């Protein structure tokens, strides 16, 4: 071409590293009166130097986009009171959800925000909204899903769990639980509740709070959907699920029968090590940990869809033909397998540990499904004879 450098050539967009610089999105759930608004106000008034936009649903009980408003967290001024109208043209055959596109547009118009908190209504199922923000890295979105945080009211949660399905659902989806209003109950009660919550979701961290006072680094920028942090979470969750003995004394309902349907049967993991049998009488929502000693074949794993009532999956996988740890993540109806940056240590047992959180889970089926994904060269996982890793990984 020409060597004419008098004029600068046109710039072209340069792809940024996936997720780098993306604005984190936290999904905040919790029953009415649990302290969600208290947490929000607490976060907004702390000295964190972040400009936070808060998306709330002021009108109804549905997560209906037409009823969402966006507020500036600093002064509470309304940024957009009808997000639906902000929608940028065509919605047909686009990859992203309307809400995501809308918030991206909002960020473009007012780029000064560096955090978004979406406050769901008391009764909402956080699954669908979380799934729509768990975007493919390839989209290089200006947004990234950071974590699902559920605030629980220590005084009333036992009753809510007995009376409604949604309370257990919100706990099941959480990456972090705030057991709030801890001052209103005894220390023993807090401990008992913690165990019960762990029985539902062994893969989340529980923070006991009073008026939602908590270190901000325990609620913001947790990067729970990053592959490396999922690997760590899955490992500890598998241990927690295994350690959770059936906490029968915690059942608030003395009449409750611990039959098969609530999963109190002794469950054996495929590796022969016993995983705990958590108390799952709470709407049948519980955590299962399955450990495989054999390496997993990713092609087979891809083809085995998790059960419908699985809300969250966190797993670390030993994959045939790779020295890296892989993670399996699932939210609502989405799941994904990603390579982490961490390699297995030479002396580290290459165990695949997958934690499922869901309602009425059939341990046998889940385990059968996972075992069906064991690589052909089982028994010698390190040899990695099956090295036909698909190039999408």
């Amino acid at each position: 071409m020409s060597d004419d450098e008098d004029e600068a050539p046109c710039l072209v967009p340069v792809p940024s590293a996936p997720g780098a610089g993306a604005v984190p999105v936290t999904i905040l759930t919790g029953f009415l009166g649990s302290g969600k608004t208290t947490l929000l106000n607490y976060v907004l008034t702390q000295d964190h130097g972040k400009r936070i936009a808060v998306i709330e649903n002021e009108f109804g009980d549905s997560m209906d986009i037409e009823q969402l408003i966006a507020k500036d967290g600093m002064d509470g001024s309304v940024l957009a009171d009808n997000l639906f109208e902000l929608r940028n043209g065509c919605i047909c055959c686009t990859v992203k959800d309307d809400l995501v596109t809308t918030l991206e547009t909002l960020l473009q118009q007012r780029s000064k925000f560096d955090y978004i908190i979406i406050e769901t209504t008391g009764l909402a199922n956080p699954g669908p909204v979380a799934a729509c923000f768990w975007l493919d890295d390839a989209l290089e979105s200006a947004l990234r899903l950071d974590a699902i945080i559920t605030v629980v009211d220590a005084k009333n949660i036992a009753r809510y769990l007995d009376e409604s399905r949604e309370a257990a659902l919100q706990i099941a989806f959480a990456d972090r639980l705030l057991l709030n209003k801890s001052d209103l109950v005894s220390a023993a009660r807090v401990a008992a509740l913690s165990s019960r919550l762990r029985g539902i979701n062994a893969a989340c961290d529980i923070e006991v709070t009073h008026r939602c006072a908590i270190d901000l680094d325990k609620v913001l920028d947790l990067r729970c959907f990053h592959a490396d942090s999922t690997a760590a979470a899955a490992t500890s969750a598998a241990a927690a699920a295994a350690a959770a003995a059936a906490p029968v004394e915690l059942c608030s309902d003395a009449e409750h029968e611990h039959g098969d349907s609530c999963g109190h049967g002794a469950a054996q993991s495929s590796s022969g090590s016993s995983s705990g049998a958590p108390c799952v009488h709470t709407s049948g929502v519980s955590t299962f940990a399955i450990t495989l000693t054999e390496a997993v074949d990713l092609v087979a794993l891809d083809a085995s869809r998790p059960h419908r009532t699985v809300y969250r999956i966190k797993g670390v996988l030993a994959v045939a033909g790779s020295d890296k740890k892989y993670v399996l993540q699932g939210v609502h109806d989405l799941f994904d397998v990603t390579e982490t940056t961490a390699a297995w240590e030479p002396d580290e047992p290459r165990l695949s540990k997958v934690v499922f959180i869901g309602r009425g889970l059939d341990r046998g089926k889940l385990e059968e499904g996972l075992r069906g994904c064991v690589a052909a060269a089982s028994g010698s996982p390190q040899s990695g004879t099956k090295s036909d890793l698909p190039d999408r990984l």
Partner: protein
Amino acid sequence: MAELCETPGCGKPASMGCPTCIKLGLPRSLYCSQECFKSHWPQHKALHKLVRSAQEPSGILPAFSGYSYTGSLRPAPLSAPRVVPSHIPRPDYADHPLGHSASEQGDKMTNTSIPIYTAKQVEGIREACRIGREVLDAGGRAARVGATTDEIDRVVHEACVERGAYPSPLNYYQFPKSVCTSVNEAICHGIPDARELSDGDVCNVDVSTYFGGFHGDLNETFLVGGVDDEGRALVKTAFTCLQAAINMVRPGTMYRDLGTVIGKVARENNCQVVRTYCGHGIGALFHTVPNIPHYPKNKAKGIMKPGHIFTIEPMINLGVWQDRTWPDNWTSVTADGRRSAQFEHTILVTDTGYELLTARENEPVMTWNEALLQR
């Protein structure tokens, strides 16, 4: 009283004016001297630009004034709306003031499982698709050097009406025309207008037809006149990408895996895959589940089962994958202004593989033949 020089701070009497301002019909701008005019020129010429952009031909949205285009394609005026006779059955959005589809929105809220069509429904969708093929062939024949994209729209519209079909794009979320025509750097959703096709253009014609309660959807990219080698290679790559994806269609294939092969073929040909738009389920609704991203490493839901019907429609770019949307809220163009091409079929998953519901006549398996696309 003598008029004063425009240059701020000059204050000298002035009698000479800017010729361009006169040509543009602007109030006179007077300068005391050529030197003074020259020094003020960088600021002054901005006024010309502003006025010129506001004075673009009528029929162009005001939102385009001052818009920074990524390439050389420009909008042109639209023709008057075309009407579908009332005896032709219409989808629900056809008469909605904002073009919203209540059935699609309801489906989006409630339906998460991919519909499995009965033999009878498949027959209906097959017919809508067959009509779509005839209409695309007619629209494609209208593409040639000097023809406007609006002329293609007229042909498509009339071909639909002759067959008793409603052109699905018309009023879908207020899309103003009956077909999408996307030229050169336009990726998709181009609005047919008074722009004449030039020698060397690549022009995608995306036809959707609604007949007997079902939609069919397909598109092809045509080579208008003498397209350069790079453009021809691009069109062939887009064709090959769709071909490779369709080869994977059979029961048990995960929808997310289509993007992997499309990405591979594109990469091998030094092209990029658009990530914003995806293939979609189709049938009683124009767009429904599954969503089928065309890029690798996507988390698309679902596994193919016999009776699923969907489109695959990878948009392939010579340059970057990123897109921009014009202020008409429809036309999607490449972010770097380089060209984009696309092919699309509506596909049925059968017990053993697939059936191209929108296949060309006597071409049940996609076969590359450049001559069929040459105009």
